[in-house]
């Protein structure tokens, strides 16, 4: 079994009185696409910065690819797209990739090949000689993404990778993440764009006020339900009360009932139960829990600060 891509043990970061990250304990496996979710100001970026050695933890420890944080051999195998993607704007796109490739210790022939391939991949092949200061926000994000992939990293950190992108750009990022999954690369995504996370991640952690409050396997999300809407004739209060065996909450409104059910497997039993009592069932509509609902349920309505 390969060493985990990320292991953190009670990482803490305080800035004076303010606690930015509190007891962060996580394990992310190689090849996993991991989403790190939370409202603004929850400590997502500070966590990434600690893992990358940009910010020193106040206490706790962590390792990346089996090496302690800050280790340069590990950093040579890591890619990083920062949140605000402010780059050396006086460089052309090609020079920018060359600079970062050199700092990664890439051999120059390989670097040139990789540079051109990635420019092509992120749709900037025609802008190789354009200075970054002429780039739009979306183009900067694309070149930043290319920069993060130069060294064929084993682990990539993407901090809000789609925040500046139009729908086409988002689709591109999604495709690239799927490619990375195919190559066995671990991707750690910070985001508050839940639809993006939902479409790409294997597992997500929710972080609020510097703490991980929940870790969720996305595969379980596919089977879990939030509520079921039932349209039927002949629903009596007694029958409805009997539904409580499968549902946490039952609400009847004329011909319609809304049930809160957490397991899909309960649906056939609910149907049999109703049919056995001569209830005429017109529709049972399951509604899956969206990540957004879980997010609100986990983090609360107040959101970020």
């Amino acid at each position: 079994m390969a060493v985990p891509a990320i292991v953190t043990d009670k990482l803490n970061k305080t800035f004076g009185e303010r606690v930015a990250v509190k007891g962060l304990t996580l394990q992310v496996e190689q090849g996993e696409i991991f989403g790190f979710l939370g409202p603004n100001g929850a400590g997502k970026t500070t966590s990434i910065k600690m893992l990358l050695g940009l910010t020193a933890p106040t206490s706790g420890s962590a390792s990346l690819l089996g090496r302690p944080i800050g280790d340069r051999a590990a950093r040579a195998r890591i890619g990083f797209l920062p949140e605000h993607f402010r780059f050396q704007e006086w460089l052309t796109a090609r020079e920018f990739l060359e600079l970062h490739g050199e700092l990664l210790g890439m051999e120059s022939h390989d670097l040139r090949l990789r540079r051109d391939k990635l420019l092509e991949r992120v749709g900037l092949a025609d802008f190789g000689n354009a200075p970054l200061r002429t780039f739009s926000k979306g183009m900067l994000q694309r070149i930043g993404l290319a920069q993060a992939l130069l060294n064929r990293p084993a682990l990539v950190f993407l901090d809000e990778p789609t925040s500046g992108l139009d729908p086409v750009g988002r689709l591109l990022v999604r495709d690239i993440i799927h490619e990375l999954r195919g190559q066995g690369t671990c991707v750690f995504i910070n985001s508050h764009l839940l639809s993006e996370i939902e479409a790409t991640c294997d597992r997500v952690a929710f972080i609020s006020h510097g703490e991980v409050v929940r870790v969720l396997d996305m595969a379980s999300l596919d089977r879990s339900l939030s509520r079921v809407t039932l349209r039927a004739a002949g629903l009596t209060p007694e029958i409805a009360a009997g539904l409580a065996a499968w549902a946490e909450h039952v609400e009847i409104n004329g011909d319609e009932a809304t049930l809160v059910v957490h397991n899909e497997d309960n649906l056939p039993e609910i149907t049999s139960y109703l049919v056995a009592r001569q209830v005429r069932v017109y529709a049972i509509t399951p509604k899956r829990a969206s990540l957004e609902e879980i997010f609100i349920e986990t983090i609360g309505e107040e959101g970020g600060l």
Partner: protein
Amino acid sequence: MRNIWTLARMTYREALRRRIVLTGLVLGLCFLLVFSIGFHFIYNEFYISPDRTIYRIIRSEATNSLLLAGLYAVSFLSLAMGVLLGVDTLAGEIASGTIQTIASKPVRRAEIVLGKWLGFAALLALYSLLMSGGTALSVFAQSGHVAPNLPAGIGLIYLESLLMMTVALAFSSAIPALAAGGVVFGLYGLAFIGGWIEQIGALLENQAAVKIGIVTSLIIPTEAIWRRASFEMQSPLAGVWGTSPFGAASVPSAAMILYAVVYLAMALGAAINTFQKRDI
């Protein structure tokens, strides 16, 4: 080593692309032009028949004083250039976040500081040499006069700008650019006024005033380096006459120059040390 070289090249290229150097050079050329025209008119005032030895000596002294006045201005322009280069680089990149993609690479923080320092040192060498050399060349072309120990003097002017750049870099690793610039120019002002107190004190033979100058030179030895440079380049007679605004009545010792070099190394060490501990 390779990383330092890569970052030095980037720094050099940045200064060229962001037109910092171009602006400096254009203003520098304006300075050289004004200086040359001014020198031309003043020098021609001195015209006297070549056979009068005593007047030739006076003219040579006046020419050297003018050259030193020009070089004094050049030394200020060079150190200001040094401060402008050094003060924004770490602080600015930390503030904008540009540093994040660099510092997350397999690069030591020390290599980032050293790379930037080397890039700026190369730029300053170019700038100092062009400006000091241009001033000296303009005087030579018009009068045939060459200051004594000119290379040593130009070297010291370069050292002064290098020192200021390094101190600016050290502050830039700890505090925002504007604050760092304020502190560095404040220190320069302190050394400047201390230097003058020392000069006047030396003329009045007041030891307390001389000591004030020495203490400010220990706080930051920029003015002392200039006075050593002007001492190197002044004519033997100038010392006898006392002081001109650009000469040196109280001459900093060679030990002070050594102190300046050690000071520079310590400032570079402080820059590295602070930047290593900094959250970015």
